[in-house]
Every structure is written in structure tokens, then in C-alpha cells.
């Protein structure tokens, strides 16, 4: 095992990890504000993938160009879902919220199965196999573009929360819901907006990741689990933590695939998750809130 093999794996893992991080951001935003674990996470992301697939088939649109469209579409989906359905279970115990979102997840997978069938489908862009070399480091264009797109979307999101009035209002809801209500914020609208933003991240991440992987409906639960692992490692509710966790998982999976067996890579993620849960349950960058 020479240095360059490991370096290539690390860089590849890092680039994919940024896309994973963007997807995990979507989970983290929703949990951080609404305090609901979105068990339909991967399903919404796969919806984004299928949307980008259709755009490619119908209009010949590069998946990266359909990122804004996928984000907008999923924003609408998330907004309506929170406003009409999820908001009605906020007073129920955790296991009922889990069941509701798990049932919605099952519905999404089944609907996708009905429409698209079970086979894996992908897009082939002209630069699919192009790469460039830095020394012996070989970097694929699709991976690099995907990572850049993920970073752009994530930066926009972070800027939104930092700089805009609406972003601040959402953060206020997350810090103190009652206080936000007292000062006159429309909390239910802001919650719907938050779920929409979280879902938009997933739509964007889905469109981006279609550049790298083929899509089929049963992909969804795997992405949900992956995002759980990432946000727990990074800190559930911490936005920056989600990106760091994504990179960490991307790199560790890539290294595990090279050093051991590719099929063992997820075992490492879950092992890492168990360790983090035990040693630092609030995550690497999360605040201890219990």
C-alpha cells in the first residue's frame, strides 16, 4: 500500500464527503430547529436524484444545472409537508413522530418504485471519465465539480442563516421557541420554511450526487442511515459539524475500502458512530444540551 494510493483514496473520500455533508446539513437544519428527526431524509434526497435524472433525459440538462431546480422543488415539498402534516405531531411522543416520518418514507419509496421501477439508472455527462493529475494524485472532474457545487450550496445556506433577517429569526426559534413567539415571530411559518430549506439541501445534494452514482428507489434508507451517522458524529443540530462529519465519513469510508474490503466500509462508519455516541454523545462540534 503506497502513499499515492492512500492519498488518492483520501482526496476522493474528501470530495464525496462534502456532498454527504451537504445532505447531512439538511437533516441537521431540521433537527436543530424543529427538533424532529427526519426519517424520510434519504427518500427526499432520492426524489431530488430522480428529478435531476428526468431533467437530464428530457432537456439534456447537466445534473449540476438542475441543482437550483431540484432545490426549489424539494423546498416546496418540505414546506407543505411540515405545514400540513409534520406540524400536527409536534406534541406527540418521539416514537409517533418517528412512525409518521417512517410511513412517509415508505410512501415515497413505493411511489418512486411505481413510477421509475426498481432498476438503477444514471446519467452520462461528457466529462464523466475525465480527470486531471497533480503529481500522482488523480482527481476526477465529476467528483471535483460535485464537491464544488456542494460547497457553494452549503456556503449559501450558512450565509442565509448568518446574514438574513429570516435566517436570524429561524435561529431564534431554535434557541427559544417561546421567546420567538413572544417577540411576534410566526413560528409555524418559520418551521415550514426550515423544513423546506432542509429538504432543499437534500434536493440539491441529490441532483449533485446523481453525477457520481446511479439512482434507484431502494437507495433511500442507506442515505438516511449515512446522514444519521454524519450528524451524530458532527453534532446533531450543528451546521458546520455536519460538513465536518461528512468529510470524516467520506474519508474514512474511502480509506476503509482501500485498506480492508469495500463492503466493510459502512461497518467503520457505524463503529465510529457507536464510539462517538458513547464518548461524546453531543457530537464533535455539538453543544451539550442535555
Amino acid at each position, binding site marked *: 500500500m503506497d502513499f499515492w494510493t492512500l492519498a488518492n483514496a483520501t482526496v476522493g473520500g474528501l470530495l464525496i464527503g462534502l456532498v454527504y455533508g451537504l445532505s447531512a446539513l439538511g437533516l441537521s437544519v431540521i433537527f436543530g430547529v424543529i427538533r424532529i428527526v427526519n426519517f424520510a431524509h434519504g427518500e427526499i434526497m432520492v426524489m431530488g436524484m430522480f428529478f435531476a435524472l428526468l431533467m437530464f433525459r428530457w432537456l439534456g440538462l447537466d445534473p449540476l444545472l438542475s441543482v437550483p431546480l431540484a432545490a426549489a422543488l424539494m423546498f416546496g415539498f418540505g414546506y407543505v409537508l411540515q405545514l400540513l402534516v409534520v406540524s400536527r405531531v409536534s406534541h406527540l411522543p418521539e416514537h409517533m413522530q418517528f412512525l409518521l416520518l417512517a410511513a412517509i418514507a415508505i410512501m415515497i419509496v*413505493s411511489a418512486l*418504485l411505481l413510477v421509475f421501477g426498481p432498476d438503477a439508472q444514471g446519467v452520462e455527462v461528457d466529462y464523466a471519465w475525465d480527470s486531471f493529475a497533480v503529481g500522482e494524485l488523480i482527481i476526477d472532474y465529476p467528483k471535483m465539480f460535485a464537491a464544488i457545487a456542494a460547497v457553494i450550496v452549503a456556503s449559501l445556506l450558512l450565509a442565509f442563516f448568518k446574514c438574513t433577517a429570516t435566517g436570524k429569526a429561524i435561529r431564534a426559534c431554535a434557541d427559544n421557541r417561546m421567546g420567538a413567539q413572544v417577540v411576534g415571530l410566526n413560528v409555524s411559518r418559520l418551521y415550514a420554511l426550515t423544513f423546506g430549506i432542509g429538504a432543499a439541501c437534500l434536493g440539491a445534494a441529490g441532483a449533485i450526487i446523481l453525477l457520481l452514482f446511479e439512482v434507484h428507489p431502494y437507495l433511500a434508507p442507506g442515505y438516511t*442511515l449515512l446522514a444519521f451517522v454524519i450528524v451524530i458524529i458532527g453534532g446533531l443540530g450543528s451546521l458546520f459539524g455536519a460538513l465536518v462529519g461528512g468529510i470524516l465519513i467520506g474519508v474514512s469510508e474511502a480509506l476503509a475500502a482501500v485498506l480492508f474490503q469495500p463492503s466493510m466500509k459502512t461497518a467503520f462508519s*457505524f463503529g465510529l458512530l457507536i464510539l462517538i455516541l458513547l464518548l461524546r454523545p453531543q457530537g464533535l462540534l455539538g453543544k451539550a444540551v442535555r
Partner: protein
Amino acid sequence: MTPVRRFFGPLSRAGLWLGGAFLLLLLLLPWWGSSYIMTVAITVFYLALIGQSWNLMLGFAGLLSIGHALFVGIGAYTAAYLFAAIGLPPVIGVLPAVGLAVLMGLLIGYLGFRFAIGGVYFALLTIAFAEFVRIVIDHVSWLGATEGFFLKVSAADRHGIDLANLRGAPEMYYYLIMALALGALVLCRFLLRSRLGYYWQAIRDDAEAAQALGVNILRYKMYAVAISSGMAGVAGVFYAFYQNSLFPEIVFNIERSIEATLGSIVGGVGTLFGPIFGTFILTPLGEIVTEAIDLLKHWGVIDPQIKLDGLKLLIWGFIVVLIVLFKPKGLWPWVCARLRLTRPEAEG
């Protein structure tokens, strides 16, 4: 009150009659039902057993598990391996199977308690352990890895009754799983009214107050976890010898864990009859949807060429959503109140 009457304390006269009639119908099922109905009924009782086990963990110990497939799977693999490797009959093999499942449960429960991991985080911990074990077994060649682990069955095994080796006619499996599911119900009923059950309820309702009164929270929570995972382990042994094939992708799949929770949540978490009632609603419902689709295709309402693989689950998911939104306490308490199955002062 007679002991029997006292046991079914919360049930009203109407509830007793209806329950008795239903039980009789089920006992006589091999005489009136087709083999298809019997397969569905076996699934129902199997899921009811797992549901009861899951309900015990959440309803009594307050721990939300979304990794219950783990305990079922450990029980299944242990008994199947011991049977195939050294010919240990499952009637004995169930002991190490349950033992390992309980150990796993205690490990996760202890870690959760020791590190104060509650609620969603505990649920994610159970998922993580289930996934971890699944991937590990994917790579253990002597357990068949991804190719699956198979138990030999001959045509002769399909007749007669051999309870020690869990080989026999479908009727045997039916009565066995029925006895196990009803046994779990009786056990839970017994536990709920025991000293242990009152400790559990005290801990669930106010852990700090219970601790202040001298209840050892860790010990009693661990009891609940041990009993719950042990029950799931028993279900796993049944699964192994009923299916005769074990695949990590199927046995430990997170969908199995979600399945384990559905019946109880639909029936009513923390209620005694909720898990069994919920599975009696959900599983046949899924089958009816499948049948209805087939019938519509047969009548030409739907083009038979159309693949409708996802439709059943789509409708099923929709019904679950409706139940969560409109009957969040579960269907059993609601049905009880409607049909006066329980006496007003007692809870199901």
C-alpha cells in the same frame, strides 16, 4: 372473582365474549382456513410476539428501540448455527440464542444508561448496533455471509410434529407461534401487575422520584431490556426454523425493525393488547390490499400489464399516516371505548 376472571380484569363482559370467540376462531383456523390464511396468521402472531417485546422496552423501560431486528437476528443465527454445526436441537438451542440476544440487549441498554443516551439518540444507537452486526455477519463465512445461511429440510420434515427439532407440518408452526405470542401476552400481563411492573411504571412516570424512593433505576430498566431482547430472541429461533434460510440483508434490515414497531404503535404503545391488536389490523390489511389489486386486474379495471409493486406499501403507508394523525394513542384504546370491551375504570 375466579383467577381467570381476575386475569382478564380490565376486559368487560362483552370484551371477554368477543375475545373468547375470536380465540376459538383462531384455534380452529386449520379447519376453516386455507394454507394462505394460515401463512398470514403465522406472520401475524410472529409480529405480535416481536411487537410485544418491543412494547415492553418502550412502554415499560421508556427506551425507544429501532433496532429490534438485531435481537431477533441474533436469536435466529445462534440457534440455526448450533443446529447445523453440532446438531443441537432448537429446543435446547433456544437457551444460548436467548442468552446471546439478552447479552446484546444488556450491552446496548447499559451503554445507553451509563452514558445517559435517551430518546432519539438511544434509537440511533440501536440502529447503529443492528447495522454494525449486519455488516459483520455479511463477512462471516461460517454464517454464510451475504450468500445466506440455510437449514436442511426434507419433504418428510413437512409432515408430523417434531417440536424438539422444530420440524413438522404448517399447523405445528401455527400453534407454536400462537402459543408463544399468547404466552408473551400473559407474561406481560403478569409482569405489569407484579412488583417489578409497578417499579417500571414508577420509573417511566417519574424516574427521579422513583430513585429518591430507593428504586434502583438501572437494575429495573435492565430487567425490562433483558426480558424484551430475550423475547425477540425466541421469535428469532422460530423465524430461523420456519424460514430455514437466513440472509443478513433481510434479517437485520432496518425495515424489519420498523415492522416490529408498527403493530404496537398502531395498536397503542404501553397497552397490553395493543401490539397483538395492531398486527391483527396491519398484516391482513396489507394482504387485503394485494388481493384487491389482483382482483381489479382480473376484472380489467386496471391493466394487468402495469407493474404495481409499490402500490400496496403506498396505501399501507398512507393508512399509517392517517392513524398517527387522527388516532395517535393507538387503535386499541379507541376500539375498547367504542365497543365497551374494557370496564370504564380500568385501562387496557
